[in-house]
């Protein structure tokens, strides 16, 4: 099977899953159901595509397939912000109630943080890329320490609001936010797509990339910023969902079996979308809403990933 056929298959799968998701058990008020579920489908498409896309680019830059861009502490920062707002202003404060305000604030904070982060670390001496990630992780732990402290003190009733934010939710996404995030997403992926052939070269590692004439430092910095903005957008839109990218990116590599990003990236987006749709259908019809999509995805993603790490390593 060629790469093109595989992409067609993924695309058809997506159409089938969307149809299934929109129609299964949708009796009665069709207009309402379709509108509500349609909005969720849009959210799935955006986040599934954005996160997988960002993860593939990130893994190519870092030259390995077991890291996720979330490792630099974006999720922790998002949770810190949400917890801080509930802790100081309460769950009924305007930033908690008004979704667009929350979205804006979260995006600005996460993007601002990562800009500052990369700016500091890319200045002067060039640090080891893994070192950079580890430093990011330290920031993450720092944020989590503060978050945990506040979460323990929060009134249990108020905590419910924080808890809702801990898990990505696709139900509460608002239509106008979808437009904003969607526009940002299309713009960013279009920019990223222009580097698809350079990504093929980056995957060879730094010294080959430099030898073949890439402005490595600059390219990596730009791509990392692209990756963090994508992740920030997705996180601000629905909430943190750490293992999605890891799961879908690796499924994409296994399925596509090519090194060319012009195929990997579109395929990855489709896999991301399909994974979320499947997950939601399972949550609704197997678990009957007893758990949430992000908990399921993180669970499956985590276990799959553990298997990846433990299986006999043939090629990586």
């Amino acid at each position, binding site marked *: 099977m060629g790469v093109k056929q595989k992409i067609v298959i993924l695309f058809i799968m997506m159409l089938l899953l969307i149809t299934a998701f929109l129609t299964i058990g949708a009796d009665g008020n069709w207009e309402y159901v379709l509108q509500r579920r349609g909005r969720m489908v849009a959210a799935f498409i955006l986040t599934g595509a954005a996160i997988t896309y960002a993860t593939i680019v990130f893994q190519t830059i870092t030259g*390995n397939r*077991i*890291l*996720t861009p979330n*490792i630099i502490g974006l999720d922790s920062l998002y949770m810190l912000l949400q917890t801080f707002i509930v802790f100081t202003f309460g769950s009924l404060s305007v930033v908690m109630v008004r979704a667009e305000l929350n979205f804006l604030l979260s995006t600005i904070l996460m993007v601002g943080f990562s800009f500052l982060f990369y700016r500091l670390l890319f200045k002067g*001496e060039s*640090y*080891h890329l*893994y*070192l950079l*990630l*580890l*430093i990011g*992780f*330290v*920031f993450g*732990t*720092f944020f*989590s*320490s*503060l978050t*945990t*402290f506040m*979460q*323990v003190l929060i009134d*249990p009733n108020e*905590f419910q609001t924080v*808890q809702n934010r*801990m*898990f990505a939710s696709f139900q509460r996404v608002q239509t106008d936010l979808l437009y904003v995030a969607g526009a940002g997403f299309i713009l960013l992926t279009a920019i990223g797509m222009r580097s698809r052939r350079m990504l093929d070269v980056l995957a060879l590692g730094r010294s080959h990339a430099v030898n073949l004439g890439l402005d490595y430092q600059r390219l990596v910095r730009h791509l990392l910023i692209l990756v963090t903005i994508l992740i920030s957008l997705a996180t601000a839109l629905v909430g943190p969902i*750490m*293992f999605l990218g890891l799961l879908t990116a690796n499924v994409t590599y296994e399925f596509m079996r090519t090194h060319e990003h012009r195929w990997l990236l579109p395929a990855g987006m489709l896999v991301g979308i399909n994974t979320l749709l499947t997950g939601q259908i399972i949550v609704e019809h197997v678990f009957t809403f*007893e*758990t*949430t999509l992000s*908990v*399921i995805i*993180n*669970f499956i*993603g*985590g*276990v799959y*990933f*553990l298997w990846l*790490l*433990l299986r*006999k*390593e043939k090629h*990586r």
Partner: protein
Amino acid sequence: MKLRYVLLLLGVLAFVSLFIGVSSLSITDLFSMTEEQREIFWSSRIPRMLSILIAGAGMAVAGLVMQQLTQNRLVSPTTAGTMDAARLGMLVSILFLAGAPALVRIGTAVAFAVAGTFIFMFILERVRRKDPIFIPLVGLMFGNILGSITTFFAYRYDLIQNMTAWLQGNFASVISGEYELLWLTVPVLLFTYWYADRITAAGMGESFARNLGVSYRTVINTGLVSVALITSLVVLSIGMIPFLGLIVPNLVTIFRGGHMRKNLPYTAVAGAAFVLICDIFGRTIIYPYEIPIGLTVGVIGSGIFLYLLLRRGRHGS
């Protein structure tokens, strides 16, 4: 610095810490305590001080042992999934073994911590890229996986906020009768001191250890079990204390070089002192309220860890 002086400093700090707290109890009261003061002194202040010393020393030594076994200065119970495994074990024991005797529940947490640490070592052997900075990243990802499994169950049983509370290291709730479990750490610590040279030899690699007549597998396994025991006992009685096992051994190595058996007492004392200082700080800064140790160590530890990382990065390694 001689160990003697460090110990003296620790003693002074420990003594001072006894007289910090909400209920009034000053040094001058020491020999004329009221009934109430005596009660607080023996059932709260002393246990708290002791648990700090034990937990601080324990986590620092656990980190040192892990670093020797993996030959990687950035590995510790925080960055190898041990803490997360212990937490998962705690959740399992609460959910499924609620009626079982305490020993069974503790055993479960320890078993999970042991299993988690072994899986991490197993992954390490599989990972081809032995980049020293990559290894802790693998451990962190592994810890996150365990975390996601814990969350999966915690969410179903509506225990998220409780889990968060356990996650956070806190000495405030330590009172006599409930922290004694921690004392089990002490024999394990003494054992690692006695065992230190073998751990160093095994850390050099299988062929190196064989050559010295050390049974590689046995030493690695014994070392890992000790680490898991210490970590799970601390997590069970205090909570998670991030970075401790990472920064204390590294700081000690900077000042004293890398001989494990000689360093071990310093690491233990420095770990205890570090936690004690953080605790005193946390108890005084917003007096009469207190900041839990998880937060103080988390914040101060992040700073020190960053310093260590950047210092290392500058040497071009």
